[in-house]
């Protein structure tokens, strides 16, 4: 993975020093809250319901074991023993004290981490496919591009005061696990034939996707941007947005609204015109040496040559049913023979989606050191990944995970729901999200039942900001507020992958007491309606909203 060099480290250190000074001035009363607020927001520090919240960036979701240990240490020393992994592949601490923020940032800087640009109207942490580099069928490791974009977007002088926050995601695989069509800019690395069996790598560019109050699927504005021109093309998009994006209305300030208002064709025309100016200057083409230097950090590790199948694994599977379930559900094929990609579910039955305590984080770091070449990934579905586990080590890994309640075999199943912090923590929330996720997973705890239901993505947000991605849930749940009490709106048929779709609202909202029953009714309807081999989403797409709605609102 990428390692800081002296430049990266120096900039992070300088930023920590700068913010430490600002914190000290605020505490002494030399800085007013009005002046301090935008500064703390630029450093990932929010004020939530009960305390401050610090959001730490995990660039493209890749962590080393050492970094994970530091995250555990921070949870234990400065917070209340846990952290929350978010849908943006970041981690949030819910209880830091203002005076200790500089210490936390210094600790993070020791392991090449920071909280810069995790809030504010700037280019946020860049996200990527969690299986980058280890999944079969990739054009290249998308983290090379993500890292270049990370550097380019860090402290960008022109784009740090945009109309609104800006999110970029990248994948290099036809199966979209990074929800790139729901980002301000989504990139797909693709190959282009240049004759004589040679090819060139570039990017398909999608612009103006997003969730929130007005969800949109991004529009593809370019089929191919050559690699060397990517930054110039990105600056062109950003400049069009910075010049024309709306600043008169917070809810209309995202680039998706601009694209919607001026239209896809006009957007393309403006970006191309801007691109022509910027590209002509040639200053944004990253030199080949630097591309190679960054690429080298993501070069495949020295894989051992292993047999495709492992006797140890087969034997363990045949004798341990729980392990067998876990392998079936949480393991994904690795591109290298004899290796496996392990998904660690952070959704134990009845647990808080995405939360991990310090002991669990330490355990995961140890497992990664011992069995996964020191590396861990964070997924936007709030789980973790061990990308380099040998098949014959799977049972050991499983046992160690199980000892920490980290081996729930539910990846992609109904109990693997996404939930934002909601009204239990979040200042902006209308309703709680976490308790719903907990109740749903308890209601459907029975594994045979979950397997029978099959893939079903439940996504829950506590307000229209949609941090829980409810619009792209097969079943989406949105918390709304009616005179200080919580209500929940259901939507069906959303998908965040390459078949992108936005869920349709079923009808009147439900109370907190009714909502889990309502979800169960939807599941029952699906089981009645499905044809062999159909997932929930397939059935929904075939039959539409009506049959589900009839069941849902039928008088008991």
């Amino acid at each position, binding site marked *: 993975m990428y390692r800081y060099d002296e430049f990266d480290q120096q900039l992070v250190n300088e930023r920590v020093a700068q913010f430490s000074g600002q914190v000290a001035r605020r505490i002494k*009363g030399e800085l007013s809250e009005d002046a301090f607020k935008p500064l703390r927001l630029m450093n990932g520090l929010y004020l939530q*319901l009960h305390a*401050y919240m610090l959001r730490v960036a995990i660039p493209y979701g890749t962590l080393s074991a050492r970094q994970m240990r530091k995250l555990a240490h921070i949870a234990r020393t400065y917070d209340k023993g846990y952290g929350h992994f978010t849908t943006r592949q970041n981690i949030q601490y819910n209880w830091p004290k203002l005076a200790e923020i500089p210490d936390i940032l210094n600790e993070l800087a020791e392991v090449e981490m920071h909280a810069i640009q995790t809030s504010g109207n700037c280019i946020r942490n860049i996200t990527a496919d969690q299986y980058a580099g280890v999944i079969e069928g990739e054009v290249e490791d998308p983290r090379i591009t993500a890292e270049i974009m990370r550097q380019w977007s860090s402290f960008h002088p022109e784009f740090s005061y945009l109309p609104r926050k800006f999110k970029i995601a990248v994948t290099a695989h036809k199966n979209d696990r990074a929800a790139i069509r729901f980002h301000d800019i989504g990139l797909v690395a693709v190959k282009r034939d240049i004759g004589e069996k040679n090819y060139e790598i570039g990017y398909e560019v999608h612009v103006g996707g997003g969730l929130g109050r007005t969800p949109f699927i991004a529009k593809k504005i370019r089929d191919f941007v050559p690699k060397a021109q990517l930054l110039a093309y990105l600056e062109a998009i950003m400049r069009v947005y910075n010049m024309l994006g709306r600043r008169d209305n917070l809810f209309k300030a995202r680039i998706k609204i601009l694209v919607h208002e001026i239209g896809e064709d006009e957007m393309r025309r403006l970006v191309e015109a801007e691109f022509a100016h910027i590209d002509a200057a040639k200053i944004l083409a990253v030199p080949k040496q630097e591309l190679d230097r960054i690429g080298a950090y993501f070069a495949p590790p020295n894989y051992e040559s292993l047999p495709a199948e492992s006797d140890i694994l087969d034997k363990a599977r045949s004798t341990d049913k729980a392990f067998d379930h876990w392998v079936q559900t949480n393991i994904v094929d690795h591109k290298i023979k004899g290796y496996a990609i392990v998904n660690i579910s952070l959704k134990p039955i009845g647990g808080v989606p995405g939360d991990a305590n310090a002991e669990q984080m330490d355990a995961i770091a140890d497992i990664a050191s011992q069995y996964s070449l020191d590396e861990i990934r964070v997924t936007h579905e709030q789980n973790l990944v061990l990308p380099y586990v040998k098949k014959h080590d799977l049972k050991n890994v499983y046992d160690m995970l199980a000892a920490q309640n980290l081996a729930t075999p539910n990846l992609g199943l109904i109990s693997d729901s996404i939930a934002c912090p909601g009204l239990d923590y979040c200042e902006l929330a209308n309703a709680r999200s*976490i308790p719903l996720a907990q109740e749903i997973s308890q209601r459907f705890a029975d594994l045979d039942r979950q397997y029978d239901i099959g893939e079903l993505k439940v996504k829950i947000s506590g307000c229209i900001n949609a941090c829980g991605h409810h619009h792209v849930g097969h079943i989406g749940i949105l918390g709304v507020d009616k*005179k200080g009490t919580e209500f929940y709106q259901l939507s069906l048929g959303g998908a965040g992958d390459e078949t992108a779709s936005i869920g349709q609202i079923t009808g009147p909202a439900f109370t907190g007491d009714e909502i889990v029953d309502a979800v169960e009714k939807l599941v029952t309807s699906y089981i009645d309606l499905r044809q062999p081999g159909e997932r929930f989403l397939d059935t929904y797409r075939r039959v539409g909203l009506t049959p589900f709605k009839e069941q849902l609102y039928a008088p008991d």
Partner: protein
Amino acid sequence: MAQHATKTARFQAVTANTVQQGEVVYFAENGAWQPRLDQAIIVEGNEAAQALLQKAQRPDAELYVVNMYLFEVVKTKNGFKPLSVRETIRAAGPTTRLDLGKQAQGE
């Protein structure tokens, strides 16, 4: 921000978060900020509420607290309680972690 003070509210109190920790506090006697709602000054009627808020907004208040506002409380047989779920959670702590927040301090 879902805040629930309304002109029709009968009883109200003033709340804020501390600068140091972001902790929830309530405006109390002698200009102090206290961590528990039962220590807060509760006033009746909109006029009294506005007056209370004004009193809380001393020029130096920003040194100690931020995010100050009025919210509605209701009288119960166990004293005043917040009307909204939001303020109930602020007064107690996360409902999913009963070991954290004010509720954990056994009060």
